[in-house]
């Protein structure tokens, strides 16, 4: 079969794109764990989080778990992905959107006592945008705005095969 010069160039370009895509896909697969911005409490309980260095945990602030210490700056709360939860202690200023039942990402270190000591706490916003009245109406109608897991989190799966 004879290919015209143009068709030949097209084949080269197409081959290049395919090769490159495969290469990038493999690289991304290999680096998968390093691309994770935070670990979920379930992953931490499965020992997937680093033990000897700082990392981030992400999840929902458990309803009713926030306790402010007498010094006014230290806060204790638990972070949950509705399956596992981890107690967190943090001294510092919390972002405005930090709230019970809302998403949070905390950076810090796991203590020997199982308490995560955070050096930075960020609010994790979800993708729902609506006026306050609509949110109120949804709540009255019994619709959970957040859904089962918090926004942006991958579905919780027990990765037995991996």
């Amino acid at each position, binding site marked *: 079969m004879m290919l015209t010069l143009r068709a030949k160039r097209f084949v080269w370009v197409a081959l290049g794109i395919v090769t490159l895509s495969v290469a990038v896909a493999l690289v991304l697969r290999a680096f998968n764990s390093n691309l994770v911005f935070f670990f979920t409490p379930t992953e931490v309980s499965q020992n997937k989080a680093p033990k000897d260095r700082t990392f981030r945990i992400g999840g929902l602030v458990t309803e009713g778990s926030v306790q402010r210490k007498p010094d006014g700056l230290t806060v204790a709360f638990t972070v949950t992905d509705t399956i596992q939860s981890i107690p967190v202690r943090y001294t510092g200023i919390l*972002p405005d959107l930090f709230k019970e039942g809302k998403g949070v990402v905390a950076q810090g270190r796991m203590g020997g006592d199982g308490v995560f000591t955070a050096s930075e706490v960020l609010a994790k916003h979800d*993708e729902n*945008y609506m006026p306050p009245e609509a949110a109120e109406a949804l709540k009255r109608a019994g619709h959970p705005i957040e859904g089962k897991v918090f926004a942006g989190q991958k579905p919780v799966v027990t990765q037995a095969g991996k």
Partner: protein
Amino acid sequence: MSLFKYSAPSSFYPLAGKLVPWFGVLAFLLAVGGLYLGLFVAPEDYQQGEVYRIIFIHVPSAWMGMFIYLVMAMYAVLALVYQTRLSAMMMEALAPTGMMFTALALWTGALWGKPTWGTYWAFDARMTSTLILLFLYVGYLALMNAIEDKKRADKAGALLVLVGSINVPIIYFSVKWWNTLHQGASVSLTQGNKMAATMLAGMLVMALACWMYSLAVSLCRVRAIILEREPHAAWVKHIREVQA
């Protein structure tokens, strides 16, 4: 075929000239309408209050930054395979606008991130890949300006854009594939939208405004590039702007 007629700079130049004012006027009208919807009609958000209104700039900019890069990648294929002169010129005309929108998305995102997340910047997958997109735009423009011979510059630029285009799906799906600080998509073709109707309307009108703006400025720019690159072409001597 008549469509290919416009792949020749001599016939594309006057066509672009006729289209620019239309796209420009549309961009202006849509931007006024979109900003009115976004800033005055749309209600405040139940969690963020007024801060969320940055999305009327932020989201259209981010979309535009990614989309322009994909259009450039398409032109890169045309430039490499068909070696049409106009494709390479369109790439050069689109790049500054794509770069501007990407920078705007990063900047507005940082301004929004501070009050919402509590930080201007975090190296999560979404933000890092968007920063890489900005570098790709900068790199492309630098490359085009660094190589004296335009033919060789076009080839190198097209290759860079093609290789970099793999980054666009990574940006788009990053919030799905990995745990990121950035929230998932509020608007998607497969999962419906998670926004109130007026908010969404404002955002989509602003997105259209950005499209029209991008068309207007890049067509304007490509006309200048055509004249710059082919000043001695016979047809150029006969156009009014040059004679004047």
